């Protein structure tokens, strides 16, 4: 008998989910996060969950973990001291950053550049040059490089080194040579070279990505090693630690520590994975996920049970070339602050947030600005007179006071202002949902909408109305969904290579050879972690576009299909999708820009997770009567406790369903049913 443990470390709480592999029974726990060293919180949580469930720690065989260690290092600017080696003439590649000033006309007036992750004083040039065709133009001047590096090292204590040479995506030989020298000069510090981390065209993006890898590497490596050691101490030497990657796959602790740039969106990927897990089991393969937290909302589109993956990851001001679940973020959450600019008298919400401190006015922790949460309190969606689960006090009077100030500034009444705030924040979340659906050629009405995160279930019904995505699904434990995601995903790795060839110039057998070589590369980490080839499932992808175009699609291919139909299976599919997206197709001049092999480990079959569901009647679940305000008037709304609602019961709206870490609003004209998995399905009344 063995157990697997999902652990999600968030900004405020660490969520844990323990699963009995034999029967799918689950146990959850929530403990405060410990930002100074998050492994402490993780171990606290493990102790808590095992003592509560009376399970022997040594029986836990797998720990699957979503972490924000890498993300936080970037966001707080507290990563390693990174040295950077560039090709001669390119020392300021990060300083110039493709010359981009954000903002509209005049945006430069207020643009403040954030400090470089590899500062200029730690950047030196190497005398070498590779041509765009992969031929060496001039070799690496090894003696000079060694001397310069020694000088740099004597003046500064570098904690991680990055090497990024021009055109190394075609031929990384010079980088490899430089790495060998650097190892001798610098000794035992991590060295990342761009031709290994991300062999893709575009010098700035490749340099930035490799630098970010270096920047977070020492911290991530230390964290993973410490955690692995503590787990082994407490559990057994065989316990297996895996970390969730931004693209929704798992990496072994070892692989994660080597390429931490792949972990930047580990957190949101866990939420998406958790949503997919519950929805798939209820038979929903096409879903829009909607994860609304305190300061921001993440949305993603899942088609046929697969999350879209994009080739870029964005954290704060930093954008890197690493695959991630295509999660779009808007700066709108429960803590977003509403305000009214004096001259235009418009109502604006966000992107500034009250955060956890001082938080919304309702929490009485010093917040004195109206937030989305306060509007929810004023409208009665977040009942102030009931205490359930958490220890949070909600004070409606404080919320009324701050929302009233806005109402006065606009010259409208309190309730209209509160509804206004909600409508505007819903509209900006709708914008994000449109971005992943309508703007990618998908009709949101063909998808179900899954609301989770602290505030998602409050707004989900309204967003369902705006998008026409039914049912609206609130999965079990919407506040700890990430931990479910962590516990239910697969080990994955990938290898990619810039290719850039016109389709008409490609020989099919060369193409296939190239794909197979990538498979070998992608499997390396599996071999190192002892996952043999019989348990590996490989998928191939080609990125294709019209020559010179920026837009490209990653299309899946199988070698059998290629042998049967040649490359036209790619070009035909590309034309079809291009037409669907942009109303026109070109029909010629196709170019393959990138090849990729993605390898996943097949999991051993896992019993379905068992969600506690009672068979009690709807009346048993009712806590009390309440009221909320919607579309200009007050409605009587009953308050229910989610855990007590039985399978197949239907809760008619208007009503409010509460659980430990979340509140779901059912609007008038809608009702919610609990399905056998434990999902709440909200639909408009027929």
């Amino acid at each position, binding site marked *: 008998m063995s157990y697997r443990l999902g652990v999600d470390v968030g900004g405020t709480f660490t969520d844990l989910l323990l699963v009995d592999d034999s029967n799918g029974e689950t146990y959850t726990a929530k403990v405060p996060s410990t930002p100074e060293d998050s492994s402490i919180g993780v171990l606290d949580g493990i102790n808590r969950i095992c003592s509560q469930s009376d399970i022997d720690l040594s029986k836990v065989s797998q720990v699957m973990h979503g972490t924000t260690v890498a993300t936080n290092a970037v966001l707080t600017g507290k990563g390693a001291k990174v040295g950077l080696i560039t090709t001669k003439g390119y020392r300021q590649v990060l300083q110039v950053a*493709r010359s981009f000033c954000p903002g509209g006309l005049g945006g430069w007036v207020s643009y403040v550049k954030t400090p470089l992750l590899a500062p200029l004083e730690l950047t030196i040039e190497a005398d070498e040059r590779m041509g765009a065709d992969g031929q060496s133009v001039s070799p690496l001047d090894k003696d000079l490089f060694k001397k310069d590096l020694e000088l740099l090292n004597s003046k500064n204590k570098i904690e991680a080194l990055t090497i990024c040479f021009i055109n190394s995506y075609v031929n990384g030989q010079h980088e490899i040579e430089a790495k060998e020298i650097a190892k001798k000069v610098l000794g035992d510090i991590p060295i990342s070279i761009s031709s290994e981390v991300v062999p893709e065209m575009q010098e700035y993006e490749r340099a930035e990505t490799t630098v970010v890898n270096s920047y977070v590497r020492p911290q991530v490596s230390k964290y993973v090693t410490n955690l692995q050691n503590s787990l082994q101490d407490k559990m057994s030497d065989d316990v297996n630690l895996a970390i969730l990657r931004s693209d929704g796959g798992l990496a072994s602790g070892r692989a994660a520590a080597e390429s931490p740039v792949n972990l930047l969106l580990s957190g949101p990927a866990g939420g998406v994975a958790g949503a997919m897990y519950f929805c798939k089991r209820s038979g929903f393969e096409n879903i829009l996920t909607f994860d609304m937290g305190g300061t921001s909302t993440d949305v993603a589109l899942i088609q046929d049970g697969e999350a879209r993956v994009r080739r870029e990851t964005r954290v704060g001001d930093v954008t890197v070339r690493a695959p991630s679940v295509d999660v779009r973020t808007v700066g709108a959450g429960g803590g977003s602050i509403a305000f009214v600019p004096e001259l235009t008298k418009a109502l604006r919400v966000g992107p500034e947030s009250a955060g956890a401190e001082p938080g919304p006015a309702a929490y009485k922790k010093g917040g004195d600005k109206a937030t989305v949460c306060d509007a929810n309190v004023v409208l009665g969606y977040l009942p102030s007179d009931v205490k359930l689960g958490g220890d949070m006090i909600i004070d409606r009077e404080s919320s009324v006071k701050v929302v009233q100030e806005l109402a006065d500034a606009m010259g409208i009444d309190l309730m209209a202002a509160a509804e206004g705030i909600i409508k505007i924040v819903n509209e900006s979340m709708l914008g994000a949902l449109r971005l992943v659906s309508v703007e990618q050629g998908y009709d949101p009405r063909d998808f179900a909408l899954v609301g989770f995160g602290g505030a998602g279930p409050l707004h989900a019904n309204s967003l369902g109305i705006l998008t026409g995505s039914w049912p609206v699904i609130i999965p079990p434990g919407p506040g700890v969904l990430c931990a479910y995601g962590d516990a239910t995903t697969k080990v994955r790795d990938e290898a990619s290579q810039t290719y850039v060839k016109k389709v008409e110039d490609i020989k099919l057998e060369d193409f296939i050879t190239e794909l197979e070589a990538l498979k070998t590369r992608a499997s390396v980490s599996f071999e190192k972690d002892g996952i043999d080839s019989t348990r590996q499932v490989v998928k191939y992808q080609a990125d294709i576009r019209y020559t010179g175009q920026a837009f490209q699609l990653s299309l899946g291919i199988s070698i059998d299909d290629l042998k049967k139909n040649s490359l036209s299976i790619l070009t035909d599919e590309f034309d079809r999708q291009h037409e669907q997206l*942009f109303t026109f197709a070109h029909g010629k001049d196709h170019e393959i820009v990138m090849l990729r092999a993605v390898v996943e480990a097949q999991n051993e079959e896992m019993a379905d997770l068992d969600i506690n569901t009672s068979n009690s009647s709807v009346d048993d679940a009712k806590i009390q009567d309440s009221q909320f305000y919607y579309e200009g008037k007050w409605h009587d709304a009953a308050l229910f406790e989610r855990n007590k609602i039985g399978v197949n019961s239907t809760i008619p709206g208007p009503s409010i369903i509460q659980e430990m870490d979340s509140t779901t609003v059912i609007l008038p004209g809608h009702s919610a049913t609990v399905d056998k998995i434990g999902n709440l399905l909200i639909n408009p009344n027929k």
Partner: protein
Amino acid sequence: MTAKIIETNDTPFNRVDVDTVTVDIIENALKNVREEMDAVLFRTAMSPGIREQGDCFPMVANREGKMVVGQFGSFIHGFLAAYDDEIEEGDIILTNDPYMCNAAVSHLPDWIVLVPVFKDGRHLAWTAMFGHMSDNGGMVPGSIPIKAETIFQEGIRIPPTKLYKKGKIQQDILELILHNVRTSEWNRFDLNALVASCRTASKRCVEIAERFGDEIFDSTMQIMLERNLQAMTAIINMIVPEEPAYFEDYVCDDGVGKGPYKIACKMWREGTPDKPLAIFDFEGTDPQAESSINFYMNEEMFKMFFGSFTINLVDPQILFNDGFYDLVDVRIPQGSLLKPNFPAALSGRTHALGRIFDVMGGVLGQGAPDAMNAAGFSDSPHLFFSGYDKKGEWFQLFQIGFGGIPGRPIGDGPDGHSLWPGFTNVPNEFIEAYFPLRIVKYEPITDSGGAGLHRGGNGLSVAYEFLVDGQVALHDDRWLTYPWGVNGGEPGMRSTKKLVRFDGSEEWLPAKCEGVDVKEGDVLYFNTWGGGGWGDPFSRDPSLVEYDCLRGLVSSEGAKRYGVVLENGKVNEEETKNLRDKLKNERGDIDLFNFGGTIDEIKSSAREETHLEPPVSP
């Protein structure tokens, strides 16, 4: 208006009341529409100019053609006034001729697509977008001939033409146009992308109207215009003085021996606080040039520049639009550099267009010097390289240059950046993969930013090594006049172009020249200029100067411009104090602007300092 819009449903639009929250929501939705227009274009366009550099501008306008969302202001009324035909549902109009659309676009390579949006037979709105095409035919590759004397030498002129008629493409016309350009496939694709982008926006407008109601949609656009009017009324009262302010700046030369060309602007306020009128009078601007550097400036576009620079102060989230145009009067003398007589050549207008921003900064800033920026990278310098590669195939490369953002109230100017919204460089690895050249250096120029309390950004040195024989054309400015400093800040370093031949011989090239033969192995150093400095350099924290020096952004010698003495890279405090005292004494009082000398002084030292003959006054 001579154009006639045919509606099959003549129900009039009534103005209805819209609650403020609904207005805010529709405003949000329209903001998303604009962003989607950009996204569609960037992803589907093919030329590096649009795709990587973002040289394009989207717009949504109301029924009357007033821009409600966008950047460069509406050109639709200008077009409507000039277009003498019927417009029906399904029509899509294409034009590139500044003289046929009141300078809605200012040179022929910018192609505009204009789409009337209909819903249930009623005309609901306009969507439009223009983008810079890689080539427009004419005398030179890239179609920006410096030496053109009339617009007829600048390639194909497309009068407002229906590219689609009632939804059906006019293939013959399209082929005729594309037959006249050197990069027909790129243009075909980019044009498709412009159309796809406008169509998407049109669809979104109809969806919003469906969701909220046609009347509400139409009235909301009106209300959004009124919001801008209201905000700009307050802003104009606040920042435009009744007492006239005057400023002049220059385009260095016209590429055929004359210069510098003066752009003069006087600004003052009339009217009442309820209905103020800001007047910008360009009287005193030099006459039009005989070459292509003329900038036919649309008055409304200038209003837009003015508004978008100032409105950020009060509500950065507002969707900036045309609503305040009645509050601004722009007067441009006919026959001047900014309003040349037909058929003057216009293609090289980018220098004067850029310089307008420095002029506006200078004239507006006098009332509030603390909020003023120094002179910055007010141009979009560019390079063309064309010829046949080793396989005998024709190529032409268009490269935009970037430089020093000026010192600003908020801080130092970034090095080697762009002033233009959304512009980025084309990755060098992309260029090397697709064109026969190698970029051997891509680096900001040490000490090129003007010294100041806030340093001007450094200009950029890009060294192109040509791998085949071919021809280059250069388009740059500020080689003669300086990017000025303000509030005690010094001017930035000027631009230079040096060609180092394979045999080691060197020549300085003029800022504007074309048809220059280059051989395999030659290296061109395209050095742009630095931003002006902001504030007193002697008040800059010496440790910041030390850090700039450590990073190679300022040299040890250059640190002395700040009165800072560095010894082995560290500040020598005593010597710094002495030097600062001495330099302060020598300098005396601080002038608001530092132009680096009078035009006469600059001209007389030109030969020695720039290696180029000074131009003759126009």
